[in-house]
């Protein structure tokens, strides 16, 4: 294509490894795109997608270098350009929207100044004109009160606002091509949906070509015309978005799509065994050979070349015609779980309120609590033994706070938390006896942080065994190995340090550590949020298996609605520390819903080209809950009036244990919500 804006020709990028060998990060990448196209670059950690995106700006992280190939931008090879020419293009014709805008904005410089810098470098406007342009750009990204915003520093903005500023900065240079490196990672679900719509609209208005790099296929599905799938530094599949999403021609892409949990299905998605090869570890054959369900000897010996298929795709597989005929994966055989109807109650929260505010001296003397709106208020929750209850909410919803209060790390300001109907959990960790501590275990989100980097796996597993059971020596070792095998890790992992494990393996060690205590209740705090999609599927499967085995009860906190749908029987929705809705998952995920649940569900991005998010509520960040009335009063699209501000909404039951906390009766809500309905997208 001679009118291609960017052409990547046979690009290979690598670095020099420890032993002096050259290890490739990217191998023989061929890619091109032109005006008005949005290309989605998909892959999991370590596949090289970020390296490719940065390479398209002629930039490499220190230590990386080009092994072969070229990248042409409007016909000129980026690698031949001198610094001056590159500076001209970067920020101008080629714009980058970075992953973590909070880190990417210079902390000591005001927003207005940073955007102005971009404008100054790439346009020839006068001072006055530039000032106006900055305001114009901020409005274009839909930031409120731009005149006031220009004076602020980056840390004074919320994550979503920072991201919009980053977009404005990139637009300042009037780019022909925009590179977006995971721009919505770390943002709330609703914020993410808004930013994506903004990006779509901008692309449509300005005709800018975009490269959207992400591991989130839902986001990619929403914005891309074409999708490129990467694995182990190679391009394995490329084609029109709809084709790739509905009928992927490469087994990895197929596996990846299958491992994404869907809102409509209450099953744990299928997982792919194994993990991607490290740089340089792919050998002579296909990089996917160890994990591929149709691998043959030829795959091991001969590296497949990119071949066209009948439907305008390029795929790197010897047997891509057979992918369609692969049978769907078998769901794992698990023993039937006992019915939950007769199960007793293992955890009960009664009108629990939690506050981070510490009492001042005056309060302490008078023996009263500080008069501050509590972070979490009015939470009633009953969990039956053996159940999985999902606790859903965005940042600031208080879900982690509740877990910590149950674990005894935080005191509840009021209300009672009861375990097994007899034991009070209103105590702190220090006041609980060992056995109670053993029975309730907590697993954290980030395994990098929750595993002591100086301890080997053996030591990590030994801690609960020693603490709760007093085991030592040979039996300790045997039990540790047994636990490792339960989480599908071999005994040879015992001597490894966390830094030598992948994210998924670390999380599995964390799970093994929790289960080594033989708990009854496991509190999961966003345990899959930091993991790649395919790894997430493995971990979810593992959790379900352990539950089937031991009858463990889970309280599963997440912001990912699809994940919660996959594993939870009941779901509770939290907003600003207050419960909005609670009930069986199929009821909660269906209408009628609390307006907040409606907004959440509407914002979910599924890797389905035929669905589009409905943006129900504004993208406003609330710092603290309102002192009275419904917590959602400021953003609710179905607000009925003053009563929402003043009166705490009552619980309205719809049957089967499903209840919504709203002033509007469920029947009316159902009608209102059906009327606005989900949008079905005709084009993509």
């Amino acid at each position: 294509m001679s009118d291609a804006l960017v052409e990547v020709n046979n690009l290979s990028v690598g670095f020099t490894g420890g032993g002096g060998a050259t290890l490739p990060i990217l191998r023989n990448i061929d890619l091109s795109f032109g005006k008005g196209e949005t290309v989605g670059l998909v892959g999991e950690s370590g596949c090289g997608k970020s390296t490719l995106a940065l390479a398209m700006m002629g930039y490499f992280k220190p230590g990386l270098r080009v092994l072969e190939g070229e990248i042409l931008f409007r016909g000129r090879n980026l690698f031949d350009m001198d610094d001056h020419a590159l500076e001209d293009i970067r920020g101008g014709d080629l714009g980058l929207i970075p992953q973590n805008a909070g880190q990417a904005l210079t902390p000591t410089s005001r927003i207005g100044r940073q955007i102005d810098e971009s404008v100054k470098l790439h346009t020839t406007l006068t001072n006055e004109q530039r000032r106006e342009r900055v305001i114009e750009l901020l409005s274009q990204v839909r930031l409120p009160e731009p005149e006031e915003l220009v004076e602020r520093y980056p840390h004074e903005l919320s994550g979503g606002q920072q991201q919009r500023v980053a977009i404005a900065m990139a637009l300042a240079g009037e780019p022909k091509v925009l590179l977006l490196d995971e721009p919505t990672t770390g943002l709330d679900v609703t914020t993410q949906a808004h930013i994506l719509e903004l990006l779509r609209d901008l692309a449509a208005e300005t005709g800018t070509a975009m490269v959207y790099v992400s591991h989130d296929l839902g986001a990619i599905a929403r914005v891309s015309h074409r999708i490129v799938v990467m694995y182990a530094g190679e391009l394995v599949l490329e084609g029109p978005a709809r084709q790739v999403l509905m009928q992927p021609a490469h087994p990895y892409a197929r596996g990846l799509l299958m491992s994404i949990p869907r809102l409509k299905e209450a099953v744990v998605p299928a997982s792919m065994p194994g993990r991607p090869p490290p740089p340089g570890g792919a050998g002579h054959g296909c990089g996917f050979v160890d994990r591929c369900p149709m691998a043959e000897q030829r795959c091991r010996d001969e590296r497949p070349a990119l071949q066209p298929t009948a439907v305008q795709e390029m795929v790197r597989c010897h047997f891509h015609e057979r992918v369609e005929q692969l049978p769907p994966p078998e769901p794992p055989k698990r023993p039937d779980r006992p019915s939950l109807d007769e199960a007793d109650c293992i955890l009960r929260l009664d009108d629990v309120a939690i506050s981070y505010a510490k009492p001042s001296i005056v309060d302490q003397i008078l023996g009263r609590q500080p008069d501050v709106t509590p972070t979490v208020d009015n939470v009633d929750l009953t969990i039956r033994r053996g159940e999985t209850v999902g606790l859903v909410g965005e940042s600031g919803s208080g879900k982690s706070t509740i877990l910590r209060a149950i674990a005894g790390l935080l005191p509840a300001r009021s209300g009672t938390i009861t375990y097994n109907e007899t034991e009070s959990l209103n105590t702190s960790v220090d006041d609980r006896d060992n056995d109670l501590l053993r029975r309730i275990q907590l697993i954290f989100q980030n395994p990098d942080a929750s595993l002591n980097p100086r301890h080997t796996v053996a030591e990590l597993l030994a801690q609960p065994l020693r603490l709760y059971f007093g085991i030592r020596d040979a039996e300790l070792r045997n039990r540790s190995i047994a636990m490792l095998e339960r989480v599908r890790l071999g005994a040879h992992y015992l001597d490894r340090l966390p830094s030598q494990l992948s994210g998924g393996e670390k999380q599995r060690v964390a799970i093994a550590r929790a289960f080594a205590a033989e708990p009854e209740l496991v509190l999961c705090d966003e345990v899959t949020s930091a993991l790649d999609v395919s790894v997430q599927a493995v971990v979810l499967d593992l959790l379900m298996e352990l539950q089937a085995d031991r009858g463990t009860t889970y309280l599963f906190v997440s912001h990912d609605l699809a994940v919660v749908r996959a594993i939870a029987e009941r779901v509770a929705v939290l907003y600003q520390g207050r419960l909005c809705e609670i009930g069986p998952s199929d009821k909660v995920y269906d209408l009628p819903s609390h307006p907040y649940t409606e907004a959440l569900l509407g914002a979910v991005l599924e890797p389905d080209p035929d669905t589009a998010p409905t943006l129900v509520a504004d993208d406003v960040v609330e710092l603290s809950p309102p002192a009275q009335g419904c917590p959602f009063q400021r953003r609710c699209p179905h607000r009925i009036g003053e009563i929402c501000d003043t009166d705490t909404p009552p619980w309205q039951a719809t049957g089967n244990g499903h209840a919504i906390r709203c002033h509007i009766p469920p029947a009316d809500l159902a009608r209102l919500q059906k009327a606005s309905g989900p949008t079905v997208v005709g084009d993509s």
Partner: protein
Amino acid sequence: MTTAISSSEPSRSRSARFGRVMLEIAMRPSGLAGLAIIAGHIVLAVISPSIVPYDFTTQNSQLVLTNPSAEHWLGADHLGRDVLTRTMLGGRQALVISSVGTLIAVLWGGSLGLVLGLLGGRIDDVVMRVVDAFLAIPWIMFILLIIAVLGTGDFVLIPTLGFFYGISVIRISRGATHDVVARDFITAARARGESTWTIVWREVLPNVRDVLLVDGAMRWSWMILAFSSLSFLGFGITPPTPDWGLMIANGRSYMAVAPWAVLGPIIALSSMIIGVNLCADALAKTLGIDRAQKAPV
């Protein structure tokens, strides 16, 4: 986040880890040089009493300020004593006092910093203000005051130097502890119900240890300099025991006439300090610790 060491087989035993660290240091040119110099000085300090050609107290009025000759390789000082002998012996006190002092400093400062970092709250605030107050006092004055009251001598100098330098270690240790305590694995240990002692010993300490090691190594070199400065000023060692600082002070007046009397101790002192510094540097790089210290003292 990778450290230089933990790439291959990690071993539980402390001696194995120590051995590996030493090896890695020796593989760096700066580390090798530093280790060699320190080793040389330690060996010298140990064996010098047996190999010195003369007695360090022998004064010979006829040899006053003589040039280097076959019998006296570095000549004689203003009292006629053999400079070479005194140079070879001069490092012993400095080495002993500085190393023991550093050990005391790191242990007491490190522990207090650890405790403060864990406790936080009011106690932390109050104690840190006291620490800041101490840091406001120039070290010389503090030590002089102690000396004025207690006199000089090893048993005064070592604890004093150890105490004073330990105060700066508190800051470092507290900072490192703060970094560690905020991380999830500490919360996880708390949630499990591990006792405070277990958490400190098993979870916090291994992560703080490296920072303290590097700081200790740097502090050792300062300690040597501090001790030599004290001797230089006349407050350290009591003559006639040879000490480089004292020798430099004494020989200073005669530098124009007899430079070798100060040359010996100067080279010896500088080389030891440089050696320790190089080692500390290499250690810091090996362990992956940021070398820049936050306090100049």
